């Protein structure tokens, strides 16, 4: 195994430890009930986006691919998923009206 391969394997191990650490942070937040449910969801999803970015960049090596591939794959996906959040004002309206299923 070359020095470069040793370095890469060390990076994978560190990423694994960071991911476990972030999961630990999520668990503490959930256990302590630190935030209101709405804020909690926002914080947890932001942490998940960070974890997803780490997995894509280092484990899936997307950062090492050509920019053309990244630009073809990610922006349309992010755009379409973001558009789905357009429904959320309706969810908040239902909640504030106190409408039950």
């Amino acid at each position, binding site marked *: *195994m*070359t020095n470069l*391969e040793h370095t*890469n*394997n060390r990076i*994978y*191990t560190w*990423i*694994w430890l960071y*991911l*476990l650490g972030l*999961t630990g942070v*999520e*668990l503490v*937040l*959930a*256990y302590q*009930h630190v935030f209101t*449910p*709405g804020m*909690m*969801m926002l914080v*947890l*999803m932001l*942490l*998940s986006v960070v*974890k*997803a970015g780490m*997995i*894509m960049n*280092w*484990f*899936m090596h997307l950062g090492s*691919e*050509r920019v*053309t*591939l990244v630009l*073809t*794959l990610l922006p*349309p*996906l992010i755009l*379409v*998923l973001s558009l*789905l*959040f357009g*429904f*959320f004002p*309706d*969810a*908040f309206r*239902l*909640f504030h009206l*106190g*409408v*039950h*299923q």
Partner: protein
Amino acid sequence: MTTNNVLASPAWSGGASPYAVGDKKLGMWLFLVSDSLTFGSLLISCMYARTASSNWPTPFPMWPSIAFASLMTFCLLTSSLTMALAVAASKRGDRAGVVKYILLTMLGGAAFIVLHAREWMHLIGEGVRPWSNPWGSPLFGASFFGLTGLHMFHVFSGVIYLGVIALGTGKGWRTHEDVEVCGLYWHFVDLVWMFIFPLIYLMSVAPK
């Protein structure tokens, strides 16, 4: 335009390989994008239902439900590490290393499935169904079984896929690209769980 001209042209002008990846890898990335939309839609609809419900159930105590779900997360994250090591072994042509690390990855996936099946049986025993549950919003069961079921199916398919690649690599039938593409799929399964775990479990932790 002659073939040579096409090959020499820049990527955005029809260069022969604008993405500089093999067809299998490109195919897998496109599949993963479409699968992300499926999971993304389900996750966002679950977030919508959670936000819009004033009686969303919180049935998961820290022990044993969250502890087991955390253990499942540990299994998947560790299997992602061993998969990354399998791809690294494949890159340096170490076939025995590839088989060893893929078998460890399969072990992580199998442990995940066993733990998750146990969780399903526990909830079904408590009366949770996709259309109802004893505690509150009936959408909880639909969200839980829909999201985790689809994910578990991906893990199950992934374990079989890993087995095929391990066998093929051991016999010398599979190339480095096959191992790498299989790795992409497995890391994606792990990535999706990074969203399901907080949304389904941590957002429904029982009050202390």
